[in-house]
């Protein structure tokens, strides 16, 4: 199994699929759609091999593929996954299927191009999650922007140009600094391998600069306050499928970046700046919670809700530094990171499903305004049931996946600081308030107007889409253990890694993290 280039296949199969779909053209529309669906399902099926073949007992990279790419600069085609990236890859291949299905009858303008863009996007995103070479990562990272840019720019709403430019500039702005940081580290490590970066010894100034460069790149993607305003605009203009991919997967790349780059490469800078990330995360939970409450556009509301939920992810990651530095607290670091991870996966299902729900209404009424609806459940009872279910999951109801991550992060945050946990727990009230108020106005009540009165309930395609996602939300909520098990070893590995001081011997006195035994011997530190 290890010999077989499974990751390469999962990356390139959908990209090739995308090209085939493009070539098939739009003359016989259904053929291109079926080809696209076939490739999406096949890719998902193959990616399951990553799950079944994964050895949960080890925290190291698995399914490693390594070949020289640009030997002059030591750039390699270097792939591999651990328990952190593997679930995210499967999430990607899983969600793509629903995006393809969701666009089936709705996209009438060049559907083959639309499907192709999503397939290519899928391959590129898997590439981001599996690249272990910094340049390869960067190429995938930037390449991801292109299909998304096209998806919003071509199939988007009336104000799509503003949204695409904002989206592109924001994310591009962030990533340029990351490139500088990567190149700097290349000169230090004489390698572009991310794992070599993990072992670099870096002075505090260098660490801070690198951390800030990464922060700019990842914070925009997550997105964190105050660089979040591109997301509501992008969502509003994006077609349903674009919103789903954006919310379900692209945001996770920011969270993944913190785990793969910022925390292990610059643990000392992370530790000294953790307060900033924690503060921004809590602002995301509380401030954005209030902002979400007053949104009048359903997509904007869900977009803001995404920002608040992603605040839990970054919160869970960065409280680790407070916990490991406090000798009185036993444990909690692993729970924080695992909680953040589960939150990412769960948010992929829930936000994806909620955007699909908005899409269902938009396809029928062509409005996203809450005020244009009311009493939808009278004409669409099954749809109403799904919306209430996903809304409850969004509000973190136990038994749904939305609860697991929130619960773990609150439990872990309590170990770091009571008041942080206090602020984080306000999401119980805020998330319920903004979600259920929307449900009340859109779903319940008397039929508000003739358009609502004429609505048709879900067709089979839509029922299938929402039904599978609902099942995923439920399964993960009732039995998260299998997901946790594949993550344990890698997360423990990571926590051990970020708990060690990376400063050179000359600055060892500034170490707030544990000094590794090897270094301690050299410098005479206890």
């Amino acid at each position, binding site marked *: 199994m290890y010999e077989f280039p499974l990751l390469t296949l999962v990356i390139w199969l959908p990209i090739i699929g995308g090209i085939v779909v493009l070539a098939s053209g739009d003359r016989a529309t259904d053929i291109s759609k079926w080809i696209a669906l076939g490739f999406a399902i096949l890719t998902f099926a193959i990616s399951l091999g990553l799950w079944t073949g994964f050895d949960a007992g080890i925290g190291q990279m698995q399914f490693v593929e390594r070949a020289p790419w640009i030997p002059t600069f030591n750039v390699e085609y270097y792939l591999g996954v651990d328990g952190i990236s593997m679930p995210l890859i499967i999430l990607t291949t899983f969600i793509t299927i629903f995006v393809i299905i969701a666009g089936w009858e709705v996209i009438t303008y060049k559907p083959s191009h639309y499907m192709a863009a999503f397939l290519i996007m899928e391959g590129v995103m898997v590439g981001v999650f599996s690249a272990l070479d910094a340049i390869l990562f960067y190429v995938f990272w930037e390449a991801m922007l292109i299909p998304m840019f096209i998806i919003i720019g071509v199939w988007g709403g009336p104000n799509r140009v503003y949204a695409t430019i904002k989206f592109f500039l924001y994310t591009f702005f962030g990533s340029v600094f990351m490139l500088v940081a990567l190149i700097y580290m290349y000169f230090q490590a004489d390698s572009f391998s991310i794992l070599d970066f993990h072992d670099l010894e870096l002075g505090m100034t260098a660490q801070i600069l690198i951390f800030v460069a990464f922060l700019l790149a990842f914070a925009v993607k997550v997105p964190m306050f105050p660089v979040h305003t591109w997301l509501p605009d992008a969502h509003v203009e994006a077609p349903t499928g674009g919103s789903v991919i954006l919310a379900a997967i692209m945001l996770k790349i920011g969270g993944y970046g913190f785990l793969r780059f910022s925390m292990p490469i610059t643990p000392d800078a992370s530790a000294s700046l953790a307060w900033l990330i924690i503060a921004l995360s809590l602002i995301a939970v509380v401030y954005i919670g209030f902002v979400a409450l007053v949104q009048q556009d359903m997509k904007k509301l869900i977009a803001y809700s995404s920002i608040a939920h992603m605040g839990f992810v970054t919160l869970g990651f960065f409280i680790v530094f407070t916990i490991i530095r406090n000798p009185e607290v036993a444990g909690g670091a692993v729970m924080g990171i695992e909680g953040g991870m589960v939150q990412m996966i769960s948010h992929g299902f829930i936000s994806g499903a909620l955007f699909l729900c908005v899409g269902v209404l938009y396809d029928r009424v062509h409005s996203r305004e809450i005020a244009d609806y009311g009493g939808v459940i009278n004409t669409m009872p099954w749809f109403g049931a799904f919306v209430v279910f996903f809304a409850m999951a969004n509000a973190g109801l136990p038994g749904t996946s939305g609860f697991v991550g929130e619960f773990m992060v609150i439990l872990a945050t309590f170990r770091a600081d009571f008041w942080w946990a206090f602020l984080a727990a306000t999401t119980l009230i805020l998330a319920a*308030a903004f979600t259920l108020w929307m449900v009340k106005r859109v779903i319940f009540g008397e039929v508000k107007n003739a358009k609502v009165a004429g609505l048709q309930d879900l067709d089979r395609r839509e029922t299938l889409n929402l039904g599978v996602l609902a099942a995923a939300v439920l399964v993960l909520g009732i039995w998260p253990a299998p997901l946790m098990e594949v993550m344990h070893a890698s997360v423990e590995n990571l926590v051990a890694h970020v708990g060690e001081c990376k400063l050179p011997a000359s600055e060892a006195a500034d170490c707030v993290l544990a000094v590794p035994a090897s270094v301690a011997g050299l410098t005479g530190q206890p």
Partner: protein
Amino acid sequence: MENVYLTIVLAPLLGAIIAGFFGGRIGRRGAHSVTIAGVGLSTALSLLVLARFIWGDLPVYNEAVYTWMVSDGIRFEVGFLVDRLTALMMATVTFVSLMVHLYTIGYMADDEHNWPHGALTGKNSYQRFFSYISLFTFSMLMLVMSNNFMQLFFGWEAVGLVSYLLIGFWSTRETAIFANMKAFLVNRVGDFGFILGIAAVGMYFNSMDYAEVFAAAPAHAETQVALFGGVSLMTLICILLFIGAMGKSAQVPLHVWLPDSMEGPTPISALIHAATMVTAGVFMVARMSPLFEMSETALSFILIIGATTALFMGLIGLVQNDIKRVVAYSTLSQLGYMVTALGASAYAAGMFHLMTHAFFKALLFLAAGSVIIAMHHKQDIREMGGLRRYMPITWITALIGSLALIGFPAFSGFFSKDAIIEAVGHSTLYGSGYASLLLTIGVFVTALYSFRMYFLVFHGTPRMDEHTRHHLHETPWVVTVPLVLLAIPSVVLGWLVIEPLLVTNWFATGDWNPIVVAHDHDTLHTLREHWHGQWAFVLHGMTMPPFFLAMGGLALAAVVWWFTFAKNPKIDDQLQAMGGPVTKVLQAKYGFDDFNQKVFAGGSRMLGRALWLGGDRAIIDDGVVNGSAHRVAALAQRARHLQTGYLYHYAIAMIVGLVGLLTFFVVL
């Protein structure tokens, strides 16, 4: 036994799934048959478990069913703890639920009339209702049978979800969908405290398991937490957990959702908002008694909150005219009694009252529902009167329920309420004097509002319109049989169980004692030491102030709303006018609703708009993002003028620059 317990929990869930997803296919008959079969099986097995605890030697069961997840060494499991405390709750919950299932057949029979014409939601509403109440039974059983905090929270929120679905069951009614959102959000305020309490337990005990936490608790008796200038860990945990209980069990100031929850169909008011779900907080605190016993501060807090709820919510009941709302305020008040008992460490008495209340309050609600059916869904007691002649079974059972509620000697409520008042009287904690006084006055108020309603509904001359009066008749047997079956325990239950529950500590099985009471908190000791059987207890009770207060309230109600009302039907309005400002305050429900609506709901919306338009739009977008774009553009506009393309412009610029540089160097 694992299979038995699993069956008890899963049978109602299965029924709910079948009725919910295939309701259209199996029809009404199929839906109520399958859910009643599920809940019936649960009830039978629960009673069997209880019987084996009473007459057999069933051991305590405490096992995990499966591991939900493991993280950082903490095992999060789904499992059951079934001891005698649980068995009692299981029997109460499933029995009341079964009665409500039966009753619903009659109550919801013509539910299609409650929906606007053509609404698809009205199509299978009957089946959906059965699905929800079975789902509720499942959730409530998960809550009471849990052996750990995580699953407790699951059940806690799951019952909240079903309550949300059922309050808003008639989803086209604006009042209903306002009430259900309000209920969920207010409960979430409580859960906010609850989850922080669970997080505190997780941090200091590294476990979610009750037995492990209770065993380790004494070691943390002296642990201090550096919060609010130093507070004991146990006080922090207990108060946080109790905030959860305040939401679920509707204690002041988180009580505001319960009266509004009456927008839901009456069967669920009986099942969820009277007998079972709202008592979850009481059960939780009793279950956590090993923790609560370690914090006198928390107990005092509970005493004060509970007693305040008991009296002041009862007072509102005096000015209500909606039959369901009178019963709802009575429920709030009775929940206050139970909670006060917990604060006095009389957990057993609190559980005892929970149980008796479950039966007589479910009975009162179902009787009210029976009246509502007969009255064609009119609920104003001022338009009733004389119903005893038309509905004899409803009348007698409602009378029994009311007598049990006011604590008429030998009725079930008499025993439990007297036990609570006596226990609170023996408490020496801060606030116990206040609590004792309020509870005693509350007895009078209870009798007054209960019998005001009773006389206005069942006695005097009929005041409804001719059409309604013409159609008045007793409700069908599916409605009256549950009334009778609930009336029986409302009379005899107190007599039967007071001795085991309060005197001989039946709860303890071997060395497992779920209800732990510290020696100097033992407020029930006098009752135990002077126990000479039920007769003696009744006779002793009849010499005490609560008895005279209850009889006084009953007599006053009879004088005013029976005798005087017959001659002067305006007496009720006149009395309320006489109350003046007091009546106004009571009718405004002390202003809680207005305050919440203005400050919390309105304030949040205002804050949200301010942050959105001021923060996101004005500062971030227009200020920084588009601002910098504009500034770049403006700068480029200006810079453009420099590149005119005329050679002499460049030449002049060069010369000026050269001169400038030279000057710079020379001066230096």
